């Protein structure tokens, strides 16, 4: 039940992009096409889950016991940055097809604040390791859902002639706003 609440909350009620404002840059930048947004979401799912596990372990077994939680930011970002590198190298070796699908998105993820954001939220909400993993996976799906819906709408808008002043980022933001408005209907589900 606990897990179900975390999942519904992370995907619908407090969607990471539409309600928590995390991962906006890739949300706007890579969501032009449905296919690329799927690739990006896959990469985020991958990195976010591993990063949350590793940062949780670091927080619980290193930072807290030694009373050096003030090194949280610096250690988390270093972990994520090196993790992305490692994932890239390992993926290239063991699964070239997966690497081809996700590879180009991996470098973009280091500065995707959704990954660091979810790691920080996991710690600040006192989740245990399993809850953290569920939260990370659900958040990644929430990110994917928002990306996918958004990409669909943007592909549709590409066929329309949007007024000149609104073309590009402005109309994308307004669309995201309306999407966020619609998602507010889920308030109170958990």
């Amino acid at each position: 039940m606990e897990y179900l609440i975390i999942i519904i909350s992370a995907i619908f009620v407090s969607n990471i992009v539409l309600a928590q404002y995390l991962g906006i840059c890739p949300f706007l930048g890579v969501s032009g096409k449905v296919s690329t947004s799927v690739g990006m979401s896959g990469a985020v799912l991958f990195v976010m889950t591993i990063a949350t596990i590793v940062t949780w372990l670091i927080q619980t077994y290193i930072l807290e016991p030694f009373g050096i939680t003030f090194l949280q930011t610096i250690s988390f970002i270093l972990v994520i940055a090196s993790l992305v590198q490692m994932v890239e190298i390992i993926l290239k070796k063991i699964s070239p097809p997966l690497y081809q699908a996700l590879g180009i998105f991996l470098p973009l993820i280091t500065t995707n604040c959704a990954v660091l954001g979810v790691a920080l939220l996991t710690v600040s909400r006192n989740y245990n390791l399993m809850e953290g993993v569920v939260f990370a996976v659900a958040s990644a799906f929430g990110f994917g859902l928002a990306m996918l819906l958004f990409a669909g709408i943007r592909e549709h808008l590409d066929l329309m002639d949007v007024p000149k002043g609104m073309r590009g980022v402005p109309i994308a933001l307004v669309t995201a706003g309306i999407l966020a408005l619609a998602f507010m209907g889920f308030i109170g589900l958990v």
Partner: protein
Amino acid sequence: MNQWKNFSKGFIKDNPVFVLLLGLCPTLAVTSSAINGLGMGLATTFVLVCSNMVVSLIKNLIPDKVRIPSFIVIIASFVTIVELIMEGFVPALFEALGIFIPLIVVNCIVLGRAEGFASKQSFISSLIDGLGMGLGFAFALTLLGAVREALGNGSIFGYKFIEGDAILVFILSPGAFIVLGYLIALLNRFKKAT
């Protein structure tokens, strides 16, 4: 290089938010009021200026391949310093900004300026660039915060000019997206006119 131009470009011409579209997460997240926007802007400015200065000072000491990790460590250190200072001295703001203070570390502006500007330019230029970009960022956040606060709460910097309720959506997430969208459209128009 003309230092005045270097400084002022961050406000309109190369504004990090309105033109370069960098650092949009904190831009949207913390601007439910003007004061929060300003606080976040200034915190980012501090990190930007400090990291720009340090990076330009030691740019020649760092081998190319470990450039990015080194920059990240430097930036993360300054972010932590800001975090600790804010928690101690402006606890209310610290709580309002929440996880977006540590998230300054992944704000693309900071790493972008370190990598794209400070690692190539002189100390003074880098300092001024950081100051200009940071204040431009702060300006954008404060503007967005002021508009949202005015529409959503009927006040600016906490000073209430409408009694009672205003249009609540604007201090919630949909309002953040919508207001930023129209501000960018408006600025595009304004830029074309000049």
